């Protein structure tokens, strides 16, 4: 039997659902967003579906300054706490948390992920993001950092975190009880990093993580985001509407890796997918329409305004978009801005049509159809160098995740493009990524 290349899947948890007003959906358990038993059930469902990982997004702001505050769901758990809790009740699934490099200290972050990696026996992953937005900045008494500065800091931050993970070589622990030598001090290193943004002496107070490094995930698709990913990321979550764009991005990023001495398979590109599943195409479309109908105009317009950085309330909702600022003037999520703008231009959408299209996937690709249709589309991207896998964004929990696990996963398995069993016990093994060697380990000359 040949080993057919298989796709990787993330289960993107956003409770009670990815759709903007999922919480209003009759199937949504809106009151359960802070109920651990409920969240645990979702993780077990994802594990039953053999997903590579649970993925948690995060923003260090409650959205309290948004015009839609109070009308949107706005409670969530901080990722480390939730993932640590899930580590104790799951066995195989990867645990990927989003943590910003903008308002945190690398020592704390390196330590938290190393701790999670040990306790989960090698299932931790870090989605590296930078935080834009005035509300987030105000939570830390700071002014919003410019996009370029955020990425500059992020770059150095990731470097420092990796040094800290590397500060204990794999064989640093001697455990010689007889002679009272617990460790070999020559294999635990001060990192003595001094850079523009950070200065950290090290070493970490935790031995080398089980995976060497927790898996590094990156989500930005701007030019600086792509460069950071090519150099440091092992998984990219990204958002593309069309296969052509996705292929361009795929080739672009993979093409940048060689200059960092990396090969293309060391990075898995996983676009986000918002699936609406029905037993028939009509049923799927009805389900989708039901979601769209739940969006109050005020919320739709507010969300679109924040995605585009323009207050759209003054424009007719059934008319076209006004002139938008130039990309250079955008300090938030640059790539998402471009994507939404392109979507409106390409399909000639009104403001209402546009917010309806982006309220679910938030700019990610929406696939509405039967399990066969959805599997067809995933397979097409997967086999045409547009994706190595997908980050699945169920519209509503638990039904959207259940449907995917019960209907789409078996279809993918039947086609031989998704696993029936986990390949290994660590996230790295399941993703097919190799374990990094400590940068401080002495190279032995042959």
């Amino acid at each position, binding site marked *: 039997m040949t080993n057919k290349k298989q796709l990787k899947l993330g289960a993107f948890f956003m409770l009670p659902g990815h759709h903007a007003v999922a919480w209003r959906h009759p199937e949504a358990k809106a009151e359960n967003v802070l109920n651990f038993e409920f969240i645990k059930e979702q993780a077990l469902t994802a594990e039953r579906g053999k997903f590579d990982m649970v993925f948690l997004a995060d923003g260090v702001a409650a959205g309290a300054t948004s015009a839609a505050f*109070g*009308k949107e769901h706005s409670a969530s758990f901080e990722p480390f706490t*939730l993932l640590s*809790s899930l580590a*104790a009740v799951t066995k195989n699934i990867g645990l990927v948390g989003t943590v910003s490099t903008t308002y945190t200290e690398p020592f704390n972050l390196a330590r938290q992920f190393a701790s999670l990696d040990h306790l989960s026996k090698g299932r931790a992953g870090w989605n590296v993001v930078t935080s834009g937005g005035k509300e987030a900045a105000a939570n830390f008494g700071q002014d919003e950092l410019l996009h370029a500065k955020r990425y500059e800091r992020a770059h150095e931050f990731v470097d420092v975190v990796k040094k800290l993970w590397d500060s204990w070589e794999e064989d640093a622990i001697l455990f010689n009880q007889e002679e*009272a030598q*617990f460790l070999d*001090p020559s294999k635990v290193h001060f990192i003595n990093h001094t850079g523009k943004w950070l200065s950290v002496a090290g*070493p970490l107070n935790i*031995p080398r993580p089980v995976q060497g490094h927790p898996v590094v995930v990156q989500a930005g698709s701007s030019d600086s985001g792509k460069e950071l990913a090519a150099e440091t990321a092992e998984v990219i979550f990204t958002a593309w509407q069309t296969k052509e764009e996705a292929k361009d991005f795929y080739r672009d990023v993979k093409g940048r890796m060689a200059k960092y001495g990396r090969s293309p398979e060391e990075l898995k590109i996983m676009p986000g997918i918002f699936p609406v599943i029905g037993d028939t195409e009509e049923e799927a479309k009805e389900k989708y329409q039901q979601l769209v109908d739940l969006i109050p105009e005020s919320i739709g317009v507010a969300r679109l305004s924040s995605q585009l950085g323009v207050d759209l309330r003054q424009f007719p909702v059934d008319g076209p978009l006004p002139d938008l600022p130039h990309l250079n003037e955008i300090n938030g999520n640059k790539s998402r801005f471009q994507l939404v703008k392109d979507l409106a231009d390409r399909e000639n959408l009104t403001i209402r049509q546009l917010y309806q299209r982006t309220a679910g996937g938030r700019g990610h690709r929406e696939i509405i159809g039967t399990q066969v249709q959805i599997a067809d589309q995933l397979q097409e991207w997967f086999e045409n160098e547009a994706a190595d896998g997908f980050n699945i964004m169920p519209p509503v929990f638990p039904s959207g995740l259940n449907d995917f696990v019960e209907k789409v996963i078996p279809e993918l398995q039947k086609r031989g493009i998704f696993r029936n069993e986990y390949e290994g016990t660590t996230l790295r093994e399941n993703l097919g990524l190799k374990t990094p060697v400590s940068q401080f380990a002495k190279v032995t000359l042959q």
Partner: protein
Amino acid sequence: MMTKRQMKLGAFINLPGQHVASWRYEGTESKRILELDYLVELAKIAERGKFDTIFFADVFGTPIRENSPSGIKLDPLVIISALASVTKNIGLTATLTTTYNEPFHVARRFAAIDHLSGGRAAWNVVTSANDSESLLFGKDKHLAHADRYERADEFLEVVKKLWFSIDSEAFVIDKEKGQYLNTEKVNPVNHEGKWFKLQGTLDTPSTPQGHPVIVQAGSSEAGKELAAKSAEVIFTAWQTLEDAQKFYRDVKSRLAKYGRQPDDLKIMPGTFITVAKTEEEAILKRKNLNSHISPEIGLAYVSTFLGIDVRGYDPDAPIPQENVAIEDKTNPQIRANIVRGIIEREKLTTLRELYEHIAGARGHREIVGTPEQIADQLEEWFLNEAADGFNIMPPTFPEGFNDIVELVIPELQRRGLFRTEYEGTTLRENLGLSVPVNPNNKQSQKI
């Protein structure tokens, strides 16, 4: 039936054991300190013993110096989050410094753990104490003691405001009307102080305990004042009944000026316990552990406590007499004074005698003996205004901890000094602490 006042107990889990040489001892699972299964086993032992809480200290910057696994510290919040989902009753106390963290992150994490655990989270507020820590955060020098406490005080104030920024009653979740939150129950924080300027709202509502229990561990003047103002539990270190009583009365008498009752704060000194069925056996156990201390480790260890570098000395040389003034008048100085007191009281002369004496309790009170003897000593402090409970420090895990749960706890229960069943499901209920009221709600009630 009269309800007798009962003591509160913490299980101080310091792996591989409290004793400096515990990792070399055969009764210690020192190879498992990074395993979740092991931490779960220990938490369940504590729960079986009806402890109020398990307690995780935190320190960083020392792994190489000690050349023992005791320098390894997993992040305590990650640990208690993991334990939250697989335990039922036990409180989950984690230490976190205010010096190298941001109030927003801290408020969010502890709020999450309180929700995840159904009301069992506690935060032990510390300010960190050494330069090797500051170097991990891009600072050459540690913040001065007074500044650290000033920052800690304001840090706590901000964290508490954030915990109440969305009242749990704000969640109306009216699907029909499209109203998720009642924004009138949202109280954005607008704080501007010397250390923090913050405008914001947490994304987590006030928690099952109102807010997590606040624990404090410093015993300096500034520490006592901070505790009197904000803490609900104090972990402290005293050697003698008199010193402990003095501290107890001092701190409790400071509460009134903050509008608090003496019972609003539980004082729990650390107590290192070696127990066996006979006194001889207990003494032997204790000696056996000491025999595992290598002179190299022992000397490095006393250097830290004395503030004098005696590494490389002959272990049987006399203890240096000079009294080193430690600039930072905080825990290191207090610990140095405690150690000087021990030397005098116990008439210790050599460095070896000293490190063998403090290798377990690190300046905390040490009790060695039978279950009756240990219960006697705990009872004495408990009944004489020296303690409301104790933070129990087992010499080794799991053996020394199991011994305490199997031998000491039943003796305390027999005397009616300790619970046989948990009183409630939250840590506050078990500690007998009231649930804090959202100050924003209080105000609106008055109007």
